[in-house]
């Protein structure tokens, strides 16, 4: 891997989240300075900040993009106990010339009594829907029934998890064999040994979300959680960021024909557990094909995990800060160290027929 570009963030305080849009041509950042910034990639590959505005009255923890089928829509959540939905308004041509765009608040979701720790849009096949979770232990699911009128959102479900929530993840599977499903992680620190990951599933009959599983083996605080994209598998893959990185498979157990209509039962297996960070793991996230998992830990590193064709998981890459002082100016030029074997000088050395140790012995 290599650093292709660096962009001056220009936030006045700590950045908490960075988020690519669906196509990777726009990004959003949010910060303790209470603002969100949106950046656009030009044809030449340069990134420009096209909007920057105050979004909350507290630190903004997360920012996320809706699927572009719904237009240009962002959601943010904050310490100020609210989550908000924003829509880009196509401005006057003057603005376009100046390279600026406007974002307007469509709604504020004020139901939480504590800091809102995560906000995630549901998979697009469920319509325009999002979930929030809060330190008050409640997951709230909102829906905008009319995608052309984003000021109307209704609270459809409130799921009480009984433990302070830190993260949520929607199961992206659009298969008809899978009901809508959401995983919730808790960073509750109290000494009770309770499962810190819960899985809720939507029931068509009761029209409610009911708890399907708790991962009993995860008893340490959980900071992030992420379902992998489903490539037509019958089972689900879930990554958990806790005191280490863990990957679980959840295999639906075949329902009897006379099913009572309760939530699906799952066979849960742990397929990988990594403590390479040697510290708390704060984020986990899958790439778009679900073949690589990235994790970020207290060791200041981002690690990449991949399964080979034998289904064995290994760390294949590490991103680490080298702490060298930056002169503050951003470089939009590619930092090039182009090579077919960029991290393996050995190959080219051994080809030249001379390893240093041999020739100059």
């Amino acid at each position, binding site marked *: 891997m290599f650093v292709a570009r660096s962009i001056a963030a220009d936030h006045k305080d700590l950045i908490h989240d960075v988020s690519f849009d669906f196509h990777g041509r726009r990004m959003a950042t949010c910060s303790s300075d209470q603002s969100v910034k949106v950046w656009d990639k030009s044809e030449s590959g340069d990134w420009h900040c096209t909007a920057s505005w105050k979004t909350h009255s507290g630190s903004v923890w997360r920012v996320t993009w809706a699927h572009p089928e719904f237009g240009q829509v962002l959601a943010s959540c904050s310490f100020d106990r609210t989550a908000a939905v924003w829509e880009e308004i196509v401005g006057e041509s003057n603005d376009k010339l100046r390279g600026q765009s406007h974002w307007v608040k469509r709604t504020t979701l004020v139901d939480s009594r504590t800091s809102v720790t995560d906000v995630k849009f549901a998979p697009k096949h469920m319509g325009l829907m999002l979930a929030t979770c809060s330190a008050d232990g409640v997951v709230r699911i909102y829906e905008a029934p009319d995608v052309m009128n984003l000021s109307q959102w209704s609270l459809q479900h409130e799921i009480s998890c009984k433990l302070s929530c830190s993260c949520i993840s929607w199961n992206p599977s659009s298969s008809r064999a899978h009901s809508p499903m959401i995983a919730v992680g808790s960073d509750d620190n109290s000494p009770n040994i309770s499962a810190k990951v819960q899985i809720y599933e939507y029931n068509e009959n009761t029209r409610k979300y009911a708890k399907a599983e708790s991962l009993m083996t995860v008893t340490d605080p959980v900071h992030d959680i992420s379902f992998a994209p489903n490539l037509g598998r019958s089972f689900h893959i879930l990554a958990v960021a806790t005191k280490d990185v863990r990957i679980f498979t959840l295999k639906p157990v075949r329902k009897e024909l006379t099913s009572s209509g309760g939530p699906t039962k799952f066979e849960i297996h742990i397929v990988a557990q990594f403590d390479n960070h040697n510290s708390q793991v704060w984020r986990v996230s899958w790439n778009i094909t679900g073949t690589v998992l*990235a994790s970020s830990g207290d060791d*200041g590193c981002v690690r990449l995990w991949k399964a080979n064709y034998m289904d064995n998981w290994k760390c294949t890459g590490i991103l680490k800060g080298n*702490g060298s002082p930056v002169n503050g100016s951003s470089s939009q030029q590619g930092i090039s160290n182009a090579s077919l074997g960029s991290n393996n000088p050995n190959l080219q050395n*051994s080809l030249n027929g001379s390893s240093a140790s041999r020739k100059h012995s």
Partner: protein
Amino acid sequence: MEELDGDPTLTFIPGVNSKKRQMCFDWGPGEMLVCETLFKKKEKEEKVPGCPLIYIVRKDIDVYSRILRKLFNESHGIFVGLQKIEEESTGKSRKAQLVRVSKNYRSVIRACMEEMHQVAIAAQDPICGRQYSSQVSILSAMELIWNLCEILFIEVAPAGPLLLHLLDWVRLHVCEMDGLSADVLGSENPNKHENFWNLPGNTQTLTELELKWQHWHEECERHLQDGTFASNPHLESLCKVCRVEIMLGDDNALLEQKELLSNWYHFLVTRLLYSHPTVKPIELHFYAQSSLDLFLGGDSSPEPLDNILMAAFEFDIHQVIKECSIALSNWWFVAHLTDLLDHCKLLHSHNLYFGSNMREFLLLEYASGLFAHHSLWQLGVDYFDHCPELGRVYLELHIERIPLNTEQKALKVLRICERRQMTEQVRSICKILAMKAVCNNRLGSALSWSIRAKDAAFATLVSDRFLKDYCERGSFSDLDLIDNLGPAMMLSDRLTFLGKYREFHRLYGEKRFADAASLLLSLMTSQIAPRSFWMTLLTDALPLLEQKQVIFAAEQTYELMQCLEDLTVGRPEPRKLGGQRSQEDDVETTKVEMLRLALARNLARAIVKEGTLEGS
């Protein structure tokens, strides 16, 4: 099978202090965002200055190289051609085809190497020059390995010719490396090996070859005696080698001339030439291992390239592929080589259950990397097409992420999806474009995309916008589009109404009043027109009612009156609301009164006309 532990690659992010801070990140389709953060910050803490930069991190650097792009493009053509080779062809003809494919791949590598070499020489900046040179080395290594695999696995030469192939193999690469490094370093090129390797063509039988060598070495012997080479120490050493070797067949003597031999496989082949020219393939690894050991002499350990070549000499294809996967950061090499070997049915014969899965695994990796590039992704499509298990779903996931900056690109992507019946992707892409168009008030474009998406709901929405526009401005935009809807009009009722309403205007413009009138009426009576639009339609009827000639027949006039009554019956009289009468109410009331009057007059005229005998 033993799991090889390649170490994870380490990438430094400048400016981020990993001792005190952490990093947040996000995946994009082709790259990652990374940024310094502090996960445990409490809300009330002081502002914390830190690394002010957001980083874009990429994996597949090679897709961005202009010269390597040719490699990707041309090898794509070879790959697709290979997939089409008839399954039925067996035996010699098939083998010949496969060897040809292998040679094609190698010539593409060589062409790329040559071009890069030229660029390296011409480079003004020495750092750039060195970078290009190192790329050349790697390409050369790839060709070296591929060539050996071709000889051992595809050509599968039996005992005699095997050595000849290996001789060619070493000669080609040793001379080449000398030549290349000489060019770059600008030093004299003794090309000391040229004479040594100056073999006649490969059509010799082994006996002929041996005779020739015998003669050559007698010559050497004579020259040495005469002191002909006294002035050229290199040639003199060479002669000594030959003489010693032929007389003693001694590996050790050869070893003493190590400086003449660039590496252990050069040594190996030389050895075989002198001592064991009829070496059989299964014996190769024995000599290879000892050559390696002798040459390294315990001073150093084998390097990646050595391991790869050794695995090849041991005919351990899977090991070759594994080692290559680790040593090379780009999947191009292992993906194409493995695919070719799979076509040679070599992966199956090793009797490992994941034989064909490995091919697919590597092709999926390679093709995924191509999708990070704004135009190379098109090559990736064909690779996915030839991955029977997961190719389709990978294509679905990747193709919907392609940014649709231009209409041309969008149409290209859609054609690819449509040809493969990827209906959900077609719908989604069209929806994204329709939405973008609506937000930018490009209603015609939005309507086209909605129709292509077969999205009735969105078509209705856009039609409503058109109608609203018409009411506000009195004219239609995008007339061409609406006039030529054709059967697409049926997608939604509102769209049908839009099309028919526009048709009404056209008929009126062509002065086909009777047809226009019938159409107008039918729009209301068939309930296709939304109620909210009826007032507009009735108002449109006014000019037709006020014409000199009678256009609406009596029956039709009755129906129009009925429509008007249906429309007004629900409305409360303004006065009854008790509030003040607004200007709008006034206008409405006036309109209704005018309509009633016009309808009544028309009715009268129609009755009279119909009661009168025509043309007497």
